[in-house]
């Protein structure tokens, strides 16, 4: 069976992995209820955790899993409304020569969407200014 390796991760890692999942689900619930500020705060907390999880995976040689958490960090920053950190993380991933082709394509599409949205947002701000 084709799977993602996660050997050698300890209880502390699992606890943080569970915490970020709860934060992401809570954030989705808050957004659903129109509580956007609180949702953004939860997504930002989840993004910080995903960044740390990615580093731990890389240290342990779980490179593909580190990409999963790094890309999720970018997505959480985007959902928190922070394009700057989201795009920076995607660019970091795209600079890696060991990024699998399918993941590269996905990250590339995602960062293109973020840049398009950011351009629209800038244009809107300029119009209002």
């Amino acid at each position, binding site marked *: *069976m*084709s*799977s*993602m*390796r*996660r*050997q050698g991760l300890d209880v502390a890692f*699992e606890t943080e*992995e*569970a915490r*970020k*999942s*709860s934060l*992401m*689900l*809570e954030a989705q*619930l808050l957004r*659903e*209820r129109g509580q956007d500020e609180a949702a953004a705060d939860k997504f930002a907390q989840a993004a910080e955790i*995903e960044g740390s999880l990615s580093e731990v995976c890389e240290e342990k040689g779980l490179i*593909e*899993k580190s990409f*999963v958490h790094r*890309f*999720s*960090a*970018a*997505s*959480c920053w*985007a*959902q928190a409304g922070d394009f700057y950190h989201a795009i920076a993380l995607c660019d970091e991933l795209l600079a890696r020569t060991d990024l*699998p082709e*399918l*993941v590269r*394509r*996905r990250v590339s*599409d*995602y960062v293109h969407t973020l840049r398009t949205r950011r351009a629209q947002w800038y244009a809107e701000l300029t119009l209002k200014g």
Partner: protein
Amino acid sequence: MTSVRDEYRLEDIARDHSIGAAMFVPLVIVRLRGHAGATEALLTARLRDVIKAGETRHLLRLSWSAESIPNRPLGVHERTATEWAACGIACVVMSLYTGLRVRHVTGDGDRFDYWVGDGDHEYGLEVSGTMTDDVEARHRLKVRQLRENPYGVDGYVVIVGFATREVIFSFNRFGEVAL
């Protein structure tokens, strides 16, 4: 085709999985209860290439405590309520039929919703719920979606038909073309 009766206590999804699954419990109850005070429901689970090759049917009795019944509105849109109730049922069938844990939530665009696994390996899990009877069509769509995931992993698809009280739970290999 066999028919086996299995039982599961809904609140145990919080213990059996790592994602804060307790939040799905009231949504499952609202979607499955026949009347306000009901504390159990019966579902037909159709397992495809899970446990063994091919399809097997299981009768699943799901029970919950009266204290878990929500006594105020859930505050989510109908579609979200259905999707998250399906996530609760997905946690149930993962525990019962694979023993794997739902380990963490995926990011945007991973082509599935959760990572599931044991201590050594992880697989994808895509979940969807419907209030209509289009479970087969929805299943085909979601299998195709899961098979296009960027990480090249195999995975599970769970589709819950709340109107028909059935669950399709399948194991699918990455990239394999559906017939």
